């Protein structure tokens, strides 16, 4: 059976129930996983899908907007830097210890050189005590340089989203999270 460029795995059967992550139990309300061939042509469609997912689960348009931005930046980075023929993006709405959690997770393979470069940048972004200040500094530093952006990952953190990453072998996993207490539009 052939697979299309984008395989959408909708929330069922993982939509509801307990899953374990980082040693904690959390109740997942909505879950979506996309596996796709890295392609610039898919980036906007994928980020819109993430935005629609967020609107399905919660009524806060600001959070949806920030996750749309984050999904776009991460999907675009994967199309630029992935060394493999397939990448994945997951978005999940869950509840944990009385708080709601929206999580965006991407996975891709990359070359050792790229992993080294990105891990230095990600480490700095993750550790920043004032992400907006770091973002402003990067803007100032790259302003005179032609054709260099390198702002996407710092932008995600500067716009108020939590950020983490891990590298196992040649696989890079990026995690973007937002915790909130507003009621969900779907029941857990």
């Amino acid at each position, binding site marked *: 059976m052939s697979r299309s460029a984008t395989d959408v795995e909708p929330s069922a059967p993982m939509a509801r129930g307990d899953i374990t992550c980082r040693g904690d139990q959390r109740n997942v309300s909505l879950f979506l996983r996309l596996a796709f061939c890295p392609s*610039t042509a898919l*980036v*906007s469609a994928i*980020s*819109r899908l993430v*935005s*629609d997912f967020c609107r399905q689960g919660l009524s806060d*348009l*600001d959070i*949806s*907007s*920030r996750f*749309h*931005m984050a999904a*776009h*930046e991460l999907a*675009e980075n994967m199309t630029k830097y992935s060394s493999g023929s397939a990448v994945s993006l997951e978005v999940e709405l869950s509840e944990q210890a009385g708080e709601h959690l929206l999580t965006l997770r991407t996975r891709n393979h990359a070359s050792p050189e790229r992993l080294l470069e990105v891990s230095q940048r990600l480490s700095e972004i993750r550790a920043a005590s004032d992400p*907006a200040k770091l*973002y*402003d500094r990067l*803007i*100032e530093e*790259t*302003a*005179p340089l*032609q054709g*260099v*952006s390198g*702002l*996407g990952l710092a*932008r995600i953190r*500067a*716009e108020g989203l939590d950020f983490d990453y891990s590298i196992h072998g040649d696989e890079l996993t990026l995690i973007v999270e937002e915790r909130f207490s507003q009621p969900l539009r779907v029941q857990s």
Partner: protein
Amino acid sequence: MARLRAASYILNSMLNLPEFKTESFSLVFGTAGGVPSVKLSGNGDAEAVSAVDRALTQVHQKLLAAASTSVIVDLGDLYFMNSSCLKAFVAWIYKVRTTGNPYRIRLQLNPRQRWQRRGLEPLQRLAPAVVFLDEIKSKDSGPSDVEGT
């Protein structure tokens, strides 16, 4: 009289710049209340980057040649801008900031597009004397943030 001739020159040369239109993005030049303007609409993603970069470079050259004092950038119908398009704005603003006779860049924002203020405030921080963020007061038409952002 000389000032009027200069203003006329700016407007004519801006209107002569080529538009850029695709299925999901457009960039057109014009005037708003006698001030040169650039209007971006749609989705500012990877496919729009080179057009945005090229257009802003051309606008900068025209405005400098005409000793213009300001330009309006209408973002009312722009529902997203990726970091590479933002970088094109960063490069433009940096050039204006470091030129001897900087002009003002007035970014017109649509409050219904929630990403805009959040995403564009860093540009103002880069050059507070150059970049001004103006919210469009009654923007009923155009894409709402239902488009995603």
